């Protein structure tokens, strides 16, 4: 199972706890995780990546194993620890605004 940690406002929108567990096909990438996440929680469509372009929304970042994956290809395989479920993929809202 893949573990994903969502920012607070998306947890309340999807009515989930701080962490969700998902099945995602191999190889595990940001794209396959987001596909699985949006399939399970359709309300999250459009809130993490743009509906049409499927690009990451500007004020969100992806972290895994203490590394910033925001600017990596969405099709790049995530670290083995994430694919194995030992580490989560973190979706983080930028610290900005008021």
């Amino acid at each position: 199972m893949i573990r994903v940690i969502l920012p607070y406002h998306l947890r309340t929108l999807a009515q989930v706890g701080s962490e969700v567990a998902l099945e995602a096909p191999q190889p595990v990438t940001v794209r396959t995780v987001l596909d699985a996440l949006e399939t399970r929680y359709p309300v999250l469509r459009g809130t993490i990546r743009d509906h049409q372009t499927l690009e990451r929304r500007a004020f969100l970042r992806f972290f895994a194993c203490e590394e910033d994956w925001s600017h990596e290809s969405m099709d790049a395989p995530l670290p083995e620890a994430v694919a194995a479920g030992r580490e989560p993929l973190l979706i983080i809202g930028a610290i900005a605004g008021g």
Partner: protein
Amino acid sequence: MSTVRVLAGTRKGAFILTSDGKRKDWRVSGPHFAGWEIYHLKGSPVDPNRLYASQCSGWFGQVIQRSDDGGATWAPVGNKFTYDGVPGTHQWYDGTPHPWEFKRVWHLEPSVGDPDTVYAGVEDAALFRSTDGGANWEELSGLRRHDTGPHWQPGAGGMCLHTILLDPANAQRMYIAISAAGAFRSDDGGASWKPINKGLVSNFMPDPTAEVGHCVHHVAMHPARPDVLFMQKHWDVMRSDDAGESWQEVSGNLPTDFGFVIDVHAHEPETLYVVPIKSDSEHYPPEGKLRVYRSRTGGHEWEPLTKGLPQSDCYVNVLRDAMAVDRLEECGVYFGTTGGQVYASADAGDHWKPIVRDLPAVLSVEVQTLP
């Protein structure tokens, strides 16, 4: 006895304020969608328990919420707003072409006949419609594809379609307004549109009387007289008696004719309300006195309404969608401020009191009068 339900959208959530017909004691529910910007929420005229809300965030984009029980519970519905075809460009602030990009929904206008049909006015300016209770949205692209579209420019708040008026007697007729393109009318259910800006004068434009480019802040209509429109423009309060074919200025003796809101008394179609704001550089009431101005003559002659409103050191703004009226026998008038107050008058504006005073900045106010 009737009930009044006030729907307030704020920078940090939605609030629902309810009272009986006396409108003295109010119950506050909220924040709903805490921490999100709620640009607007509004109820269906044919099913008052059906509410729609525009919830958005710079981080997470647009969400549309729907309630089928008067706001007690909510569920997210469709949030996919895709422009029809290749959207092309409008003008950016500096006059260069800029691609149309969806940002948020400013205004939701439920149909006058079907609770599942609702219109959405969005930034960058376009009109969308859902006929399935908000699940799916389709652009009425005849508006954005109007010949003048490539010349539209954003106002300071973005290029927003903020006003949608549906003619209750003619399902084919609707009006919209865009900042800063102007007002438009459709006579074929939204398929095609005509700019209705003759008589508007905007001195900040190279051609002050151009067909489009006017920074219209809000337009109001009395449902019994859908051919008579009242407009608060960037500067100037205007009136049209011919469905927007021509406009005349009715600012009269207002202390300043800059402002955002305008509304019409529920039972007196010639009684209007505005909140004058000092200027486009200073978005607060003149002299620090919060005054609603009322005209009982359809404009030109205005009287200040001050009882119960702060008359010193008040520097709030009242944004364009933040005034509404109820339909009780003695018309109630309501408005919200950027300071978080929602003021109400149960006697058509003669006396005011804050029904809640420490909300986040109020973006919109709507009122439902329930049997």
